[in-house]
């Protein structure tokens, strides 16, 4: 083609088709983007959002279809070519070099001519970029010293330094705190007002309402539709994404009987990041852990599990002091920990589903050291069916599963070990809406069957929907515990932002 048409769009992707070895990843998908607009690109994991973006930026080559950029047909052979043309991505996983400074990161590969570096000029240019974004970050600071939120802003600065006309944000808020999200949205609005077109990928439905102008939804590699955000309700978007309605209201009352026995008691737990945390967990209870990023919730979980060393404090299981010094001790006493970072701490991603599932209970599948593969296969198949892991076979390498299915494999690992106390740390992070509700169902079923669950989550609606009680932390201290009847976003946030020097008892909070 190559014709210049009179189009309101700065970017059009028309009938993009992409297959991977028989899998139809994108089936004639089209999206378009106006200048100064935020377009949400939504869909479950595996719906084709990332593939679409990768086709746009030249990481993948489309099998058919055209990309029109300012009305001209373009093909980018490399991400660099796309970047130079003015199309940048801010990736979910930040691609920054921790040991270089902010300025060095932004101008990596563009240090200028000559053998010697002109550090001053890149520092000056970086400062100008941050000024344009309306934030202050020291260009001479090392990236490793910045918070994730600031690192992301550095990525954005890098994107605009190419004078980008189109910026793709791939799940930018997944690891940000609420304040950082506000800053990010200010920046996005700023970019909008300068005429930059933004493609915004996110799983968080509330953000879509807040920041985007239009929504394009993909499902299973096909275009479901594009609608104006103003005309959409959240459940409409969910419906478009999964083809069914799954919205569920918060829990009204605790489902734990008054006289449920205490299975886990933590007394005055202390470490570098945790100060005097005490609580009780009852049989069949889901105890939510709320708090802002860095409140010390994961740290508490790791102390209970023996993954880190506690400086002080007692852990009492079923009324008996449990001398937990390592994960080995914790597992022996029936505690299972599902880490917030599955790939790093939960799974051997290069191994098969069955090998991962029995990793914590291999002793039960060996006799005199020899592994009983048949027994492993029987159990693995049983759990694949039981918790509905979607896979062609139990020998599938875990790396190739979607986030939701990976999480199910980790859950299966602890169920096979027959753990009675399960700590779910951000169980639905990076998991699409459909799989999320399956994880919720699974957790509820576990609690009904007498398992006790600690659920750490940064998503308040999720905590409110799942928990029987909610424990709130702030800066390493336990600031209060709310029965579900009294918990709402407001009461939780109040406790989560309390100064750590004031310790509130449950009675004080109730007043």
């Amino acid at each position, binding site marked *: 083609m190559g014709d210049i048409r009179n189009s309101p769009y700065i970017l059009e992707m028309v009938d993009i088709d992409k297959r991977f070895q028989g899998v139809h990843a994108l089936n004639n998908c089209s999206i378009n983007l106006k200048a100064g607009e935020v377009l949400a690109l939504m869909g479950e994991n595996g719906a084709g959002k990332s593939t679409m973006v990768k086709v746009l930026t030249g990481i993948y080559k489309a099998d058919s279809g055209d990309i029109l950029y300012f009305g001209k047909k373009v093909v980018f052979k490399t991400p660099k070519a796309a970047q130079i043309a003015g199309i940048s991505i801010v990736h979910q996983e930040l691609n920054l070099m921790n040991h270089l400074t902010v300025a060095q990161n932004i101008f990596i590969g563009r240090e200028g001519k000559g053998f010697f570096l002109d550090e001053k000029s890149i520092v000056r240019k970086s400062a100008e970029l941050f000024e344009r974004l309306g934030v202050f970050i020291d260009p001479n600071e090392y990236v490793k010293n910045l918070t994730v939120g600031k690192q992301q802003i550095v990525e954005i600065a890098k994107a605009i330094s190419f004078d980008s006309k189109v910026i793709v944000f791939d799940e930018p808020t997944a690891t940000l705190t609420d304040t950082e999200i506000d800053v990010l949205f200010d920046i996005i609005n700023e970019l909008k007002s300068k005429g930059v077109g933004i493609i915004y990928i996110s799983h968080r439905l509330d953000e879509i309402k807040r920041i985007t102008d239009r929504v394009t939804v993909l499902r299973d590699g096909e275009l479901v539709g594009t609608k104006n955000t103003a005309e959409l309700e959240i459940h409409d978007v969910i419906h478009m994404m999964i083809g069914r309605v799954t919205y569920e209201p918060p829990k009204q009352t605790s489902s734990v009987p008054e006289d449920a026995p205490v299975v886990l008691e933590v007394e005055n737990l202390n470490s570098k990041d945790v100060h005097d945390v005490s609580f009780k967990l009852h049989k069949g209870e889901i105890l939510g852990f709320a708090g802002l990023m860095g409140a010390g919730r994961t740290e508490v979980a790791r102390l209970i599990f023996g993954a880190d060393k506690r400086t002080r404090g007692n852990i009492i299981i079923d009324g008996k002091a449990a001398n937990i010094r390592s994960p080995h001790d914790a597992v022996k006493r029936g505690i299972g920990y599902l880490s917030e970072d599955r790939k790093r701490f939960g799974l051997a991603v290069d191994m098969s589903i069955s090998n991962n599932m029995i990793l914590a209970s291999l002793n039960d599948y060996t006799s005199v050291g020899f592994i009983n593969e048949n027994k492993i296969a029987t159990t693995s198949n049983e759990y694949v069916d039981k918790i509905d892991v*979607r896979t062609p076979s139990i*020998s599938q390498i875990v790396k190739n599963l979607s986030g939701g299915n990976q999480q199910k494999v980790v859950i299966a690992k602890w169920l096979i070990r027959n753990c009675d106390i399960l700590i779910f740390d951000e169980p639905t992070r990076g998991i699409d809406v459909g799989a999320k509700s399956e994880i919720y169902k699974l957790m509820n079923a576990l609690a009904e069957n007498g398992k006790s669950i600690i659920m750490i989550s940064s998503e308040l609606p999720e905590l409110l929907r799942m928990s029987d009680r909610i424990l709130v932390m702030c800066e390493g201290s336990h600031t209060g515990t709310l029965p579900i009847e009294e918990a709402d976003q407001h009461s939780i946030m109040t406790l989560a932002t309390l100064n750590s020097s004031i310790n509130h008892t449950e009675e004080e909070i109730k007043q």
Partner: protein
Amino acid sequence: MNIRIRRFRLESFFALGALTILCIIFSIFARGFNQWATALNIFASSYAIGFLAIGVTFVIITGGIDLSIGTVMMSSALIGGFLYQNGEGLPLWICLIIIVLIGTAFGTLNGLMVTKLELPPFIATLGTMMVAAGLGSIITSVQSQRFPAPIGDSWFTRTFFRIDNFPVGAIWLFSFLIIALIVLNKTKLGRYTFAIGSNEEAVRLSGVKASNWKCIAYVISGFCAGFGAIFHAAAVTTIVPNTGQGTELQAIAAVVIGGTSLKGGSGSLTGTIIGVFFMSVLRIGLQGMGINAASQVFFTGIVVIGAVLFDIQRTKRANQVRKVKPVVQKEK
């Protein structure tokens, strides 16, 4: 299980194919390659490196490295030989057991340094490499040590090297390989070895004492070095102090040629043994073609680089095919 077995067979198939092609080339171009004597030479030069490579495969699959195996082997053999000659009539078989124990002790030392003191494997085993070399020289006062030569009815060489023209050592090596294969693929130890290489922290957080299992991998490596020392002694009969440096690199090269990833988490012992013979065939074959020792090293280097390049390309290709669509899409 299917995928793992299929992949494993494919890897071995490639390596075996390359080995076959190499043999065919040499049988055409190298003088006297198709003789039993050549085969005996190839076997003889494979024993020591073979045992070392089998042992270090375990360590490499955990994601570590063992640089000490070469000098540990030489040092064990030297000390054993010293005891045999100066041990006031100490029977040879006891000396042989001591040789294996010395190797195992060095392996244990490596394992403890890596797991308890948390030293990087490269540094810990580099240190042991020097310590072992030094210890061998100190104890023997830098004198060569002799084992019974293959004359008369020496049971030593007849048991561990060859009987007339039959390579007994090969029987040992392959029996040892089969045991190692069973340990690596059928036991808990083997499964944890792979799991640790894939993600050690996840293994630890599954309640497994990962560091203990990792330590065992180094012990195995040391044990194999000690065991290999016996066969080395039987093959060369005279052990010279301050040798052995570089043997470990040949063993590691064989492991890499065999398709085991230095990143850990994947690897195969069948591949390792093919790698060992690939290097031996290359060395003996090049000798047969009248190419000097320096050029042999040169070509071996090229083969190692080529093998790794090939492996990377193959993994890349394999990764492109890895997009699997779920089969069951349940409608709720």
